[in-house]
């Protein structure tokens, strides 16, 4: 069980999310009044910043767009600096349902894992209801993680993650694209525990996906490359740690 003074930060990376951000924040505040909230405004050019100001929410603003992964990294660095024990990340597009977060958080505490992934596919273990290309990608990354670590993670690309203090340091040190398969493999190879907890998501109603047409081709290659490099880096880190322990 967590200590009664355990501090939890809900972090929402947002880039041009004027259509949904207010609703997401209000839902989070309503469902999780005891958790602190941070929005990482990742160089939005629309009205997102004005909305955040009017809602009086703690905001870390990137002066330019750094990308989703860097926004998550900012949230982790923020949590580390201000002494939080846990960071919960969720998307600003309204796909995640804040009312489910408490259950996922309780699962995290009960399982004692270092990283919990809110999984869309854990229950069915199938990628039904997604486009063919996406389905192939999901299956590929899931199998990649399985091959690299021996552990099957069904939803490697979920934006809902519960990150414990134990992995703040490796999450801010090593380079990740979007904290997806590459981060999962790296952390598992370092010996951290990762688990999944079932969630359901709504369809994106407004705003644009962070993945462009080109990125559908570059993303798998970049992620696969980082998975391989991550395995090597994790092995070297463990080797250095073992040498340091002697």
């Amino acid at each position, binding site marked *: *069980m*967590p200590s*009664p*003074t*355990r*501090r*939890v930060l809900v972090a929402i990376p947002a880039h041009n999310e004027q259509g949904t951000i207010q609703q997401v924040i209000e839902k989070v505040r309503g469902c999780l009044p*005891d*958790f*602190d*909230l*941070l929005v*990482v405004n990742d160089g939005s050019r629309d009205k997102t910043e004005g909305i955040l100001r009017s809602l*009086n*929410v*703690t*905001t*870390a*603003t*990137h*002066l*330019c767009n*750094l990308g989703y992964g*860097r926004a998550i*990294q*900012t949230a982790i*660095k*923020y949590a580390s*600096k201000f002494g939080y024990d846990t960071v919960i990340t969720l998307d600003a597009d309204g796909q995640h349902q804040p009312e489910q977060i408490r259950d996922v958080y*309780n699962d995290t*505490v009960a399982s004692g894992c270092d990283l919990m992934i809110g999984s869309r596919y854990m229950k069915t273990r199938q990628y039904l209801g997604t486009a063919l290309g996406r389905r192939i990608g999901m299956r590929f990354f899931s199998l990649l993680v399985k091959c690299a670590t021996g552990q099957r993670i069904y939803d490697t690309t979920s934006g809902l993650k519960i990150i414990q203090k134990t992995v703040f340091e490796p999450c801010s040190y090593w380079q990740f694209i979007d904290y997806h398969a590459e981060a999962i493999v790296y952390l598992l190879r370092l010996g951290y525990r990762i688990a999944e907890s079932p969630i359901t998501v709504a369809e994106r109603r407004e705003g644009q996906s962070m993945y462009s047409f080109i990125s559908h081709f570059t993303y798998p290659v970049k992620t696969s490359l980082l998975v391989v490099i991550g395995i090597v880096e994790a092995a070297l880190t463990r080797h250095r740690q073992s040498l340091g322990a002697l």
Partner: protein
Amino acid sequence: MIVHGILNVSGLLLLLWALNLVQRNRLYVGYGVIFLFFYLGLLMAEVFFPDKIVFSLAFGFVFFLLAYILMQVTLISNRLVAVVQALAINQAKHTVDRDIPVKL
């Protein structure tokens, strides 16, 4: 012979362009020196080695230079990210400052 002459003049013009960039503060002086030595090195190599080897040397240099430039861009990009993140964290407008126990 004519081809060699044209290539040498082209190389010299490129070198002068690079030095002009240094003069206008558009190129770091260290890179200007690299171009200067590379040009002189190729001139000497032309005298002593066959064309294929000179071409390989030039190709190797261009590849090395490209890798080096991309490395520098990555370095600058990483520094920019670190600055932007630090600024964002330090300037975050704290609206909540509390320590409430988590309800389970």
